[in-house]
């Protein structure tokens, strides 16, 4: 097991380095950064001066190394737009995004996994149909529409929940539901399919032949095997929620990191974009690593790989 963890960790570091190189090179793929900084009225002399001032004239590898060693210390440079340290800018937004992401994935898992299990125990039953209905709705309904409808009903008509902002936990209820509901269908269906598959397997019959009760058969013998693909999926969705919850963040005016990334792209604020891409990718890498470790703990056969 330790061997497996070390191997995966090594792999994760390699992926992280590759991603950092790509996100660094964005700066140059988007055109001449000096020209962009100097603005449209700038002369060639101005651009040259800026190029030297920001160090864009040095060899690429030197610039990468400098950027990376600073980034590792939490220094992502200064935002072109806000003229503030990017790290300050991000920290404040990131806590909002992380709260939303953790709540969203928890909501998705806590509804989808039990529903998937129940649906698998009684396939084609009323509850199975209900679960299918919920998942089709979740897949078909765009988040922006669902979010707006929630605001119309719960904020405007019933006046139960605040439509926007981040002041208290109550503000996070609707965004959590909208974000979580987006991830729910896939998790639910994967849980259902996995459970159906496992419940028909020989070792479940063995457990029953041993005299194990239904609860023990379901949760000790079946769920542990059925949940393995769900763990991998949830990790990817968690990464997505932390990076790509732009729609939900804009509807409920939660100024999180996803929203900042979207704005920064529009403003050509490359240091901010770079930093956010790097951080979002790190989330993916960390969650993938954690899900690999969790799966290896669940299934001993994975530990060998």
């Amino acid at each position, binding site marked *: 097991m330790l061997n497996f963890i070390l191997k995966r960790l090594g792999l994760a570091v390699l992926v992280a380095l590759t991603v950092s190189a790509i996100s660094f090179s964005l700066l140059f793929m988007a055109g001449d950064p000096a020209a962009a900084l100097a603005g449209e009225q700038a002369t060639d002399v101005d651009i040259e001066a800026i190029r030297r001032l920001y160090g864009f004239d040095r060899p690429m590898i030197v610039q990468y190394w400098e950027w990376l060693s600073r980034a590792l210390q939490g220094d992502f440079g200064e935002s072109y737009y806000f003229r503030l340290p990017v790290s300050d800018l991000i920290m404040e937004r990131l806590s909002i995004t992380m709260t939303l992401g953790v709540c969203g994935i928890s909501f998705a898992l806590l509804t989808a996994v039990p529903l998937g299990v129940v649906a698998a125990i009684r396939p084609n039953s009323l509850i199975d149909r209900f679960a299918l209905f919920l998942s089709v709705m979740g897949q078909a309904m765009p988040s922006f529409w669902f979010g707006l409808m929630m605001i119309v009903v719960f904020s405007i008509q019933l006046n139960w929940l605040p439509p926007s902002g981040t002041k208290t936990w109550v503000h996070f209820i609707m965004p959590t539901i909208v974000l979580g509901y987006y991830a729910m269908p896939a998790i639910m269906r994967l849980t259902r399919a996995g459970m159906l598959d496992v419940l028909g397997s*020989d070792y479940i*019959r*063995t*457990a029953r*032949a*041993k005299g*194990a009760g239904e609860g023990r058969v379901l949760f000790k013998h079946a769920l542990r095997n059925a949940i393995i693909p769900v763990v991998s999926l949830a990790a990817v969705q968690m990464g997505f929620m932390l990076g790509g919850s732009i729609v939900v963040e804009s509807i409920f005016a939660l100024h999180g990191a996803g929203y900042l990334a979207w704005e920064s792209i529009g403003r050509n604020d490359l240091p901010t974009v770079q930093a956010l891409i790097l951080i979002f990718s790190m989330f993916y890498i960390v969650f993938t690593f954690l899900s690999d470790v969790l799966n290896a703990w*669940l299934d*001993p056969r994975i530990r060998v790989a």
Partner: protein
Amino acid sequence: MSEPVLSVRNLRLDIPTGAGTLHAVRGIDFDLERGETLCIVGESGSGKSLTSLAIMDLLSKRIERKADKLVFDGTDLTKAGAKKMRALRGDRMAMIFQEPMTSLNPAYTIGDQLMEALLLHRKVGKAEARRRAVELLEKVGITGAERRLSQYPHQLSGGLRQRVMIAMALMCEPELIIADEPTTALDVTIQAQILRLLVDLTREMNVAMILITHDLGVVARVADKVAVMYAGELVETGTAKKVFDAPMHPYTRGLLRCIPVPGKTERGSELGSIPGIVPSLVGKVSGCVFRTRCEEATEACRGEIPYRESAEGRHNFRCVHETGRRAGVEEPA
């Protein structure tokens, strides 16, 4: 003689399908004494496995089980609820399945799975369960038993896994073991070892065994009693000696003809076979199910078929003909 450990009368299994009710198993009768080995033989789909799963109450809920009598060790299984059955399964009756590769849970160690059987049914501590698991692993011929306890199924070969399954079935010293083709999925070289082990252990521990197989060679070596099934019916039952020496039912005779005998069967000669196919069992099944493939068939085979006792007794067969042969046909020399 004492009360049989398992007594079955008129066991029927019906499966509702879109096209009508499938009468998968019809009118099974047999008694199994303590420590006795009954072999159920028959081709695929003849209802052997369904019968054994019905005794364990492990059938899918879709299948309806009915019986005039189904008594195991003094308990009427037709009236036993789910809780009572759970208490019996794994404790008083245990089962060994055909596929050792998939019959163990990949997520738990051999030790966990062995100990589970004991911990579910006995008020014993982990240390005690562990000691028993080691003892049984040694009994089924697994070396380094202590070390094996912490291994996972994927680290064991098929033969070893089947030994683990046997050890698991024996954890609570059951009265009855049902082994559903326990050697079919194994290498030929391992088959004989596993079978020998199973037979030795059940004899030693005085456990009754129902061994399901389609290998008549196996039956000849281990069975006290034989039950031959065809298309969901018991066509012939009796002591192994009687069924093998004087098979009465035409189907049994056909089966026995299919076994090549070294030295007797000529090289290159055609292997025996029974022409025809098994009839559909959907809807009402009447008359002899074997009549479409039977050499001895007459008009009378469409009618009621009696379950006869042969002249010497303790040997029953289901045939209209008194001797299992058409009247006027001489017994071939």
